[in-house]
Each structure stands twice: as structure tokens, then as C-alpha cells.
């Protein structure tokens, strides 16, 4: 027994300690919730120690307990059903240490982060043709040079973002670059532009995908909006399942589209090289009656600006560097290079093939569909390719579901967005950000009745504002750091900044009346909102911060304890006992409506021996209100002793069944609610659970 007599870390329970506990004399609880109990074996001298510990909270180190998964499992039936339903929808909760396992390799990341950018190759060529065709057949000759110019711009922007992922491995993209190098206002403008862009990307891409479905199945056309909302809800839910899972689910259609379009372009190139004759363009739609505009620099610039929609989504990788498997920056840079190459190849390749075969925009068939119909050998392959195109258009929204929550997290971390956006849910994704994006996109779709084409120029403006600020920020970065090769990098970024700024100006002017003005209004509003949020958090921090002269000593607080009671019963007596345990002279407050009530209570109080150390006060309420006289009493105490805390100890009995709550008038609950936000007032609820 000698080795057991000395307590270790204060947790040992010798047999005498245990006896004392059984007798009810020892109520001490070790903060680690770990107690060692000595047991005798069946043989003389055999002893072993049982480590009594909480199964829900496991001790992992001295003073550190870790909640097990069981803690999150609700005990009630309804709670269990809800948890099972939630697990069915979004999957089982993942522990924080599984975060590394949730990270993406380059193959998955390309699918998750590039679907937006790569999908734009499905319509960017058409956007150029729609502009240049206004000058008639001659305009079409410029489509390929314009596409090559945009590919060069893409290369510059991608180069810039490759530098960004190395310089800012914590993510944040344009926001971080602009904030750090150009100042907070520019960073916030970039962030606002990107957030707007993300919301619009979801609305536009899902609406475009839905339009593809309802074009094929005309009967569904009246339900356009409902289908779009359903798709957004579905993508939101899949994203709530976690980055890895959504990456796996969405990788298949993305890669099918990549291989499909690559095959179309390569087959087209082979046929052209083998001497397939070019086709005279058929001019239809808006340009069918001959040239509507003369070929001018401004028209070509408009064509260039229209085609730059191909670049939207390029920034997603730079925003989400931390989601890559280590080495994060290197993997992100490689994925960015792959994405840029694929996008440039698709865009230039498709434009060139379309030009060779004289494909022009058609009212009932997209350019990519016409090219695929010419190149692919049979209808089955063509149909399959069309399905993958539709899927990639819908999945473009997924990139936003990745980018928006991360950017919102970075902004929340810097105190420019609500802190709830920092919260990572059961599946280690930013639940609030994902839900917010889903809700805002659905609102936008409903507001536009499911037809969101009008939004396209808006989001191109937003995205290019962020590109411009990011490039300009990198110019400043090179100037400040002067790393090896800084001159070359600075020149490239400066060219990028000028060209993207030019795109902003051209799209802004050309599409101003069509809705680009909305961006000009929304971005300042968002920036103003960011500043207001930041000011609030700054004020909170300032007020809560410990001053250097505070020290660490905890000064005792003066408190006045009051116990509002109705009848004298077991619940109120328990509350009075509790009040006595925290204060020497608590005040029992009895509110009465008529004089006989007070007399009866006084008699009852006397009959039970006038609980020792408790002062009794009666408050008459001639207008039969309960809360108000008590609140007035607390106010009066505060007036007399402004520095004191008033602790209100509420006796409350809890019925055995939930439905029995409705049979009682919930006085304690109403009182708690009215006391909740009062200054220097503490509310303590002393429950008394009824067994039956």
C-alpha cells in the first residue's frame, strides 16, 4: 500500500478516499476528469488501479481533454433522426485531423478549380464571333488573331497568379495581393468584385446548363427557374459534403469534357491538315442582312473584350492554395499552368477550327455544337459530347463554391466579413460561406426568373477589375522586393494590368447600359459594408482588450443575489439553497397581486421555519404584471449600488415530458428572456427535474 499513499497529481483515490466519496463527504472533481481507483484482486497482495475517466471526453495531455465523436451524437430520438438525415445528405462529421486527407491532389484540383475557366471555352469563341460578325465576313478573319491575343493575355495573367501562389501561400488571390501592395481599399474592391463575380458565375452557369436541358426537352421549359434552383441546391449540398468528395463527384464530367473537346479540336486539325476544304461562312442571325458596322479598332476591341469571358475563373486556384496537398504552392502553380494551357488550347483551337469551317453564331445552335457536329463521325458521339458540354456548364458553378467560401474566410479573418464565415462545419468545409453563396445565387436566379444572360457582362467586369488590381499589385510587389528577374516580371505584370484594365474599360463602356453600371454601384456598397463590419470588430476588440495595468489578479465582484419565488416548494427551496451557497444574504422576492396572497405566503414562510439567512421582500403588483415590477426592483438596486452585479437565481421545475411544458405558464423562461441583455445582471437557472 506504500506506493498508493502518496497522491500523484492530486488525482489518486486511495480506498479511504473512495469510502469518503461513497459517504458523500468528498465532492471534489479533478479538472482532467481522471481519477485512479485502487482495487484489490482475489489473491493476497494483488492490486490494480482502474482509471476512471470520461468516455466522452478523452484526456490527451495534462489539462487537455478531447471530445469524442460520441459527444456530437444527440441522445434524443428527434436529434438522432436529424443527425442521421444530415449524415445522409452531407456525410458523417470529419475530425479536424482529417483536414490533410481532405486536401486535393493536382488531378482533383484541376477538376474542382478549373471547371469555370475550362467551361468558358464552350461559349467564348461564340462571344467573339457575335461581335466581329457585325462587320460581315471580313470581321470573321479577325476571330483567330483575337483568340490568340486573349490566349497571350491569359498567359500573362496566369504567369502573374503563379507568382501570387508562391508569394501568398495562404490564399486570397487578388484581394491579398492588392491589399498588401496597393492598400486596403484596393484589396477590398478586388474582393467585392470577386465575390460578385462568384455569385453571378453560379447563377449564369447553372441557368446556361438548364437552358441546354430545356432546349433539348421543350416540355421542361416552363420549369426553367425551378430546375436552376434545384441544381444550385444540389451543387450546394454536394459541396457541403467536403472538398474531396465534391472533387471526386465533379471530376468525371470535367475530364469527359476535356477529353471530348480535345478530341474534337485534334480531329479537326488533322482533317484540316489532310486538306479538308474550308467552308464559306453562312451569315445568319443579326448579321444576315450584311454588315451592320464598319470594321474598326473599337469593334475589334469589343470582340477582344467579349472573348475575355474565357478567362473568368482563372483566379480560383490562387484563392485556394491551402487546399492543395503539400507542397501547396508548387502544386497550385503546376495546376494553374495545366489549366491555362488547356484553356488556351481549347479556345484558340476551337476558334481556328470554327473559322476554317465557316461556323458562325446561329440562333438555334451554339458554335461549339456546330463544330462538334462537323468533326465528330457519328450522332452518338456528338450527342455524348453535347451532354458533357451541358454538364461542364453547370459545373462551372462549382468553382465558385470553392472560391467564394475561401475568399469570404480570408475576409472574415481580416475582420471585413462576419466571423461566422470562418466556421468550418462537419465536413471541414466553410459551411456558412457555401450556404450563403447557394442562397444568394438562388435569390438572383429567382429575381431574374431563371434567365440570367443579362448578368454575363456584369461578372466579366467584376472579374477583370480583380485581375487588374492583382496585376497592378504584383507590379508594386516586384518594385518593392526586387527579387532576381524582377524587371522582366514587373514588365509582364504591367502589360497584363494595362490590358486587363483596357478590357474593363471596353466592357464597361460597351455594356454600361446593359447592366455593367450595376457593378459600379454594387462594389462600392460592398466595400462600405466591409468597412462597417471592420469598424465594429475593431470597437469590440478595443473594448475587450486587456490593458497593461489590468494585471492577472481577479478582483472580487460585489454581487446582490435575488431569488424570485412564487410558491414555497422543492424547486424554490433548492434555488434558495443555491443562492445561499453563493451569497451570505440572498433576497427572496415574492410578487403578489392581492393582499391575502402575501399573508398566505408569509404564513407559509413562517411554517417552514423562515429559511435561514434569506431576506424576504414582497412586491405588490396592482396591474398583475410579473416581470416589470421585478425589473424595476433590479433597476432600483443598480441605482443604489451602480457597481454591483445583480444575480437573479431562478427556480425552475422541468416537467418529465416535453408536451407538459405547454401546461405551465413559463414564468421563468419569460423572465430569463427579459433579463438576458441587461447590464450587470447575471441569470442563474436552478432546475428541478420532475420524475413523472
Amino acid at each position, binding site marked *: 500500500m506504500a*506506493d*498508493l499513499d*502518496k497522491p*500523484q*497529481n492530486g*488525482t*489518486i483515490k486511495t480506498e479511504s478516499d473512495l469510502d469518503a466519496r461513497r459517504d458523500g463527504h468528498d465532492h471534489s472533481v479533478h479538472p482532467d476528469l*481522471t481519477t*485512479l481507483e*485502487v*482495487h484489490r*484482486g*482475489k*489473491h493476497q497482495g*494483488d*492490486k*490494480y*488501479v*482502474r*482509471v476512471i*475517466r470520461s*468516455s466522452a471526453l*478523452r*484526456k*490527451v*495531455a*495534462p489539462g487537455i481533454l478531447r471530445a*469524442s465523436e460520441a459527444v456530437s451524437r444527440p441522445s434524443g430520438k428527434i436529434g438522432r433522426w436529424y443527425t442521421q438525415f444530415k449524415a445522409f445528405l452531407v456525410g458523417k462529421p470529419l475530425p479536424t485531423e482529417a483536414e490533410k486527407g481532405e486536401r486535393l491532389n493536382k488531378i482533383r484540383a484541376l477538376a474542382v478549380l478549373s471547371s469555370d475557366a475550362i467551361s468558358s471555352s464552350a461559349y467564348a469563341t461564340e462571344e467573339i464571333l457575335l461581335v466581329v460578325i457585325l462587320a460581315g465576313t471580313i470581321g470573321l478573319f479577325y476571330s483567330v488573331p483575337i483568340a490568340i491575343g486573349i490566349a497571350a493575355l491569359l498567359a500573362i495573367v496566369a504567369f502573374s497568379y503563379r507568382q501570387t501562389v508562391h508569394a501568398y501561400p495562404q490564399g486570397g488571390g487578388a484581394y491579398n495581393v492588392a491589399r498588401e501592395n496597393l492598400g486596403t481599399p484596393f484589396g477590398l474592391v478586388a474582393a467585392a468584385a470577386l465575390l460578385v463575380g462568384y455569385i453571378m458565375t453560379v447563377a449564369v452557369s447553372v441557368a446556361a446548363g438548364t437552358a441546354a436541358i430545356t432546349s433539348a426537352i421543350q416540355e421542361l421549359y416552363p420549369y426553367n427557374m425551378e430546375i436552376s434552383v434545384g441544381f444550385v441546391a444540389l451543387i450546394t449540398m454536394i459541396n457541403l459534403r467536403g472538398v474531396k468528395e465534391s472533387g471526386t463527384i465533379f471530376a468525371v464530367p470535367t475530364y469527359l469534357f476535356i477529353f471530348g473537346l480535345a478530341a474534337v479540336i485534334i480531329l479537326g486539325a488533322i482533317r484540316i491538315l489532310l486538306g479538308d476544304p474550308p467552308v464559306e461562312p453562312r451569315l445568319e442571325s443579326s448579321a444576315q442582312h450584311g454588315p451592320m458596322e464598319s470594321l474598326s479598332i473599337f469593334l475589334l476591341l469589343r470582340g477582344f473584350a467579349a472573348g475575355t469571358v474565357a478567362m473568368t475563373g482563372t483566379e480560383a486556384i490562387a484563392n485556394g492554395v491551402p487546399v492543395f496537398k503539400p507542397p501547396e504552392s508548387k502544386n497550385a502553380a503546376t495546376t494553374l499552368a495545366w489549366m491555362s494551357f488547356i484553356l488556351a488550347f481549347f479556345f484558340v483551337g476551337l476558334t481556328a477550327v470554327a473559322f476554317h469551317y465557316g461556323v458562325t453564331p446561329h440562333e438555334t445552335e451554339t458554335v461549339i455544337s456546330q463544330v462538334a457536329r462537323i468533326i465528330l463521325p457519328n450522332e452518338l458521339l456528338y450527342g455524348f459530347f453535347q451532354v458533357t458540354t451541358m454538364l461542364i456548364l453547370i459545373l462551372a458553378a462549382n468553382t465558385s463554391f470553392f472560391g467564394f467560401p475561401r475568399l469570404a474566410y480570408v475576409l472574415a479573418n481580416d475582420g471585413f466579413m462576419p466571423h461566422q464565415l470562418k466556421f468550418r462545419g462537419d465536413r471541414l468545409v466553410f459551411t456558412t460561406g457555401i450556404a450563403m453563396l447557394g442562397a444568394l445565387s438562388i435569390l438572383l436566379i429567382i429575381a431574374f426568373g431563371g434567365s440570367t444572360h443579362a448578368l454575363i457582362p456584369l461578372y466579366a467586369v467584376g472579374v477583370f477589375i480583380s485581375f487588374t488590381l492583382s496585376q497592378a499589385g504584383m507590379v508594386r510587389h516586384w518594385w518593392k522586393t526586387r527579387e532576381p528577374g524582377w524587371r522582366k516580371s514587373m514588365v509582364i505584370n504591367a502589360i497584363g494590368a494595362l490590358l486587363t484594365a483596357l478590357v474593363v474599360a471596353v466592357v464597361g463602356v460597351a455594356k454600361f447600359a446593359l447592366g455593367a453600371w450595376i457593378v459600379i454601384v454594387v462594389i462600392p456598397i460592398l466595400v462600405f459594408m466591409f468597412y462597417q463590419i471592420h469598424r465594429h470588430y475593431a470597437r469590440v476588440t478595443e473594448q475587450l482588450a486587456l490593458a497593461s495595468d489590468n494585471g492577472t489578479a481577479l478582483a472580487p465582484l460585489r454581487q446582490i443575489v435575488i431569488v424570485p419565488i412564487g410558491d414555497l416548494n422543492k424547486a424554490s427551496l433548492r434555488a434558495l439553497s443555491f443562492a445561499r451557497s453563493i451569497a451570505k444574504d440572498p433576497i427572496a422576492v415574492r410578487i403578489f397581486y392581492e393582499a391575502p396572497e402575501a399573508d398566505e405566503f408569509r404564513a407559509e414562510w413562517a411554517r417552514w421555519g423562515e429559511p435561514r439567512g434569506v431576506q424576504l421582500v414582497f412586491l405588490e403588483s396592482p396591474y398583475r404584471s410579473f416581470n416589470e415590477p421585478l425589473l424595476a426592483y433590479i433597476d432600483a438596486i443598480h441605482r443604489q449600488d451602480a457597481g454591483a452585479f445583480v444575480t437573479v437565481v431562478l427556480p425552475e421545475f422541468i416537467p418529465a415530458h416535453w408536451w407538459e411544458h405547454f401546461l405551465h405558464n413559463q414564468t421563468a423562461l419569460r423572465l430569463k428572456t427579459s433579463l438576458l441583455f441587461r447590464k450587470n445582471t447575471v441569470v442563474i437557472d436552478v432546475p428541478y427535474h420532475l420524475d413523472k
Partner: protein
Amino acid sequence: MTFGNILVPVKGNPADDAAVQLACQIAKSSKARITAVNVIEIQRNQPLNVENETQMRDAEQVLEHVEQVARAARGALMTELLQARTAGVALVDEAVARGVDLIVMGIPYRKPLGDFQLGTTTQYVLKNATCPVWLCREAAPEEKS
């Protein structure tokens, strides 16, 4: 044959999993309660009530693992952590204290001296337990020809 209270000694080796799965199967048919017990063996030069953080953390990890194994087998178990000079003695005494009517032990296939041997803990439990003891030996590796 039905049982009401099953004890599964666990040590952190792969044989534990099979023992827990077997115990879960038995418990399902006889609605028995399962307790997985891990014993930290304390050297004689230390007091029995010493709190070795590393050992305790490792032991907790073993218990957490078998809880997961039980959940995967659609079973549930309680876990117990003991400290003793020799694991076998504590297991037998704990089984008596808990009124256990079956011990299911997983044992690894080991040939420390060229021939298969039961460990000392298993031997002690087999010899002294007052209830039936079922052994669940892991598969023997295939002999190289």
C-alpha cells in the same frame, strides 16, 4: 449459449479487431454488454498509481480504435483502462468484479523462439479466469517453401 457480459482485453495489435468483431457478433445474438479493457503494465520501480501521459495517451488511442471497430461492426462497447503490475492478473480480477461471463481475447500469431507460443497474459487468463475464455488467433502467415 448466451452471454450477458463480455470482456475483450485489447492491447493495440491487429488481433484486437477480430476479437472485437467476434464479441460484437456474440453480443448481437445474446444482447450482451461488451467492455474492452486495456491494461497499462507498470514497472515495479514505479508506483502503481503513476500517471504516464504517453502510455495513457497510447492506451486511449487503442480504446478509441476498438470503439471504431465495434461501430463499424454495428456494435457498441464500453471501454476501461487499468494499471497493474501484470496485465493477466488485472484482467482476471476485473472480469470477476464485473461479473463477466465470457472473455474474448485476440492473440497474434508469434513464434518468438521458433515455435508458436501464447503470451504470458493469455496463459494467465486461460489458467485463472473463472468464466469461459474464447481465443481469436490471427491467421498464421503462409510458410515459405
